[in-house]
């Protein structure tokens, strides 16, 4: 039953993706590369580096709903690693900086997608905690993903909470690293939010700079045993 539902979801995702691909048929070779990547579900814990295509992967949200990364094909995707138990992560979230970032990002790119991911071993399998944490702090994301096995986190090599990753509309990882340039671990907001900086540069067609900034925060604390 579960398997058939998953297959149906996968099929519908593929159909949707196919339609989106058809609509963008006049796009470039990079698009074709992305299509190829998105057509291949690859959940191996491979580190994706800045400048590389992000392979498709499966995500499960806080409600148990399964989705594919390729569901967001054609859109810029921002992924943030979160952990309600991390004072740094919770600090910027409770201060409203994440909510503000999402709002400001939507002004720059109304279609930008935000995916919050919890890969922390001891809390990632408690979806309710993550859902409550995001809801209490008015963080409205397109998806809140539970990555208890750490497969997604390790694929992106997420080391801290928070950690930010921006994937452009062609499926290329274009930014990886810190939330902002705060000099005190986010207690005082930095003048530059690197996600907004990246989105602004993408919109202007500029090369993303900086594309990698050392992130600050707590360790992700992956589960001791990984399933993937």
């Amino acid at each position, binding site marked *: 039953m579960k398997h058939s539902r998953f297959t149906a979801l996968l099929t519908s995702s593929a159909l949707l993706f196919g339609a989106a691909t058809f609509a963008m048929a006049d796009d470039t070779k990079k698009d074709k590369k992305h299509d190829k990547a998105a057509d291949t579900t690859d959940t191996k814990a491979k580190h994706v580096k800045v400048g590389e295509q992000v392979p498709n992967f499966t995500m499960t949200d806080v409600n148990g709903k399964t989705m594919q990364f390729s569901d967001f094909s054609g859109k810029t995707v921002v992924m943030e690693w979160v952990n309600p138990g991390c004072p740094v992560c919770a600090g910027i979230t409770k201060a409203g900086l994440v909510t503000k970032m999402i709002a400001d990002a939507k002004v720059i790119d109304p279609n930008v997608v935000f995916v919050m991911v919890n890969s922390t071993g001891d809390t990632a399998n408690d979806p309710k905690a993550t859902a409550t944490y995001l809801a209490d702090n008015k963080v409205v994301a397109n998806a809140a993903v539970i990555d208890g096995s750490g497969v997604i986190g390790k694929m992106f090599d997420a*080391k801290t909470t928070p950690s930010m990753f921006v994937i452009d509309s062609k499926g290329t990882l274009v930014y990886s690293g810190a939330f902002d340039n705060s000099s005190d*671990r986010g*207690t005082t907001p930095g003048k530059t939010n690197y996600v907004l900086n990246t989105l602004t540069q993408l919109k202007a067609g500029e090369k993303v700079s900086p594309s*990698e900034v050392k992130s600050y925060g*707590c360790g992700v604390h992956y589960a001791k045993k990984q399933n993937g």
Partner: protein
Amino acid sequence: MMYRFRFLFLTACMLGAAAQAVSIFQTADASTQATPSKSNLKSTGTTKSDSPAQLATANSKTRVKATSAGWVKLAGGETAAVVRFEIENGWHMYWQNPGDSGAPPLAQLSAIQGWNLLEPIFPRPSILKTVDDTEFVYNNSWEWLLPIEGPAGVSPPACSFDLSWMVCKENCEIGRGRVEFAAATGDIPSVGAVRLGRSLATLGATATFNSNDQAITISGDAGKTANATSKNSSATTAQFIPAVMPGVSLQSTGPFPATVANEKFTLNIPIEIQPQNALGKPLVFKGVLLYGQSDSDRCEIIRLPLNIKVSQP
């Protein structure tokens, strides 16, 4: 083109064992308290710094006690306040580059006209390796040097530092506190004297950047890398741990072990120069070369300007 530099700063990192030198540092009266929140920073009174056990902890969640350990003179002539951290067993604080995760402590000097806090000096850290991460940390206790500069010929006045730190075990907590220092009077002990009392003679080593290979090579006399404190000085190991280097990317967090041959040790560390990630700062290769395995062994700070223009590629 090859660039050759001598190692800089032999002094600072030898403070890894500075906890053992508290009696030398504690020449000035000092008061301190460690508090968990900014709102509770006001000092409750004077506590002798040689009685850290008497320090009030305002909250049972506080994992760290920060106390004054007096003033020291640095090799460059600056005076530094010494903050001693005592960490609850099992928890750790972070070096200037925390490694894969974490954050170093922060300090802010109370507003005293004409005086400024310079770049804090971190002693040799320990390397904490887990399945997924490598972190550069301090356990148990350590001492942090906060150099200050002011009017020429004037000793530091009474002042205080507002501190915050991240302390982690399975989870992490943020701690805050204020440490107060009495005015520096009389003879201020030299940190160099402390260092020389616990280290071997200065070791010569070189660091070069080969721009063709995009690699840093560090080499030196392996014989002098022996454990500085052990009588059985057969240990001829050295390893490099990197500082935070915007615009310079390494293949891993480190540490990078040295190869030892013909009584010479060599470290060859591939780097990737990424000027777009330099955040407008000069590209510098920097970190600490650790000799031996013990926290009390010697180490040297490496700072190698890469002389590459930082601009958009």
